[in-house]
């Protein structure tokens, strides 16, 4: 059973995926300088009604093994400790202890 935070992140990803086009359209209207102020204001109010699981800033790359939010290496999707464990066990292709 994954972490509660991981579940929240999954929910956020689904929400962002479903609402991306709608959010972008409202954002375009709200930021457009040539449109009348009333229309822009209405668009901004609509944007404010969206929940937190539709905002792209809620999405965070987490460790795929432990669900840790910090110290994640994007190339492997692992947090720093898991990366070290797997690298020492030769489970990551081409990764070896550096020495120079």
């Amino acid at each position, binding site marked *: 059973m994954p972490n509660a935070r991981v579940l929240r992140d999954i929910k956020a990803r689904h929400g962002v995926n479903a609402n991306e086009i709608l959010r972008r359209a409202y954002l375009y209207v709200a930021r457009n300088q040539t449109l009348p102020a009333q229309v822009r204001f209405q668009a901004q109010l609509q944007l404010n009604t969206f929940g937190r699981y539709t905002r792209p800033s809620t999405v965070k790359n987490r460790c795929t093994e432990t669900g840790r939010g910090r*110290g994640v*290496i994007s190339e492997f999707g692992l947090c720093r400790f898991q*990366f*070290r464990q797997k690298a020492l066990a030769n489970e990551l292709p*081409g*990764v*070896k202890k550096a020495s120079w």
Partner: protein
Amino acid sequence: MLARSCRSAASTLQRWARFNSTTAVPAAASASSSATPVAPQQQLTEAAYAASVVHGRSVRAPHYLPKTHGIPAATLHFRSYHPRVLDFFVHFASHAASALGVPLSKPVHLPTQRRLWTVLRGPFVHKKSQENFERRTHKRVVKAWDAHPDVVDMLVQYLEKHIAPGVGMRAVKWHRAPVGVGQKTMESVLGHMRVDEQVRAEKVKALGEQIVQQELAAAAEAAAKEGVVQKSS
């Protein structure tokens, strides 16, 4: 001039042959077969070089055929995290090209890319003790010259079929195109594109011209009628 990765393989083969042979002349035979074939390799054709080597031709350095016209046919890039596997596969590729009669350049070592990660050793605190991990990507490049494009395609397909695990290959090919290929490509591309803007503009222009002509005709008629009226009056 043995390939670096196959030097140990050659000596291993010799030892194995000597170990397994039962006749009294193995030493002499192995010694003679281990001697590199009659130099100079560059002036021999591939067939002559092959004929001079009895056993283990694939273990020796490949015969690089000379360029006939100096026209580039393809560039093959090889990348891997493991340099020995990479060198072995490039050696294999050179042999394959030589067998197909494709003049190939000697393998060139492009600069190795190195990716470094410095990571805390423990799962919690202890910032002062860290560990370095790296991943080195080794690269080799080989150029093919002068061969027919179909032969080059065959070589690339053969290498793709028998690629060593852990090695990635990328082939950039050149081939001759007939005159006017650019225009034909453009036409085919435009045929697939949505050209609404252009079509609309042309239509508008055509409509405009039609209107102009209509107006001119109407004006001419009006002028003619006026002339008639004036004449009559």
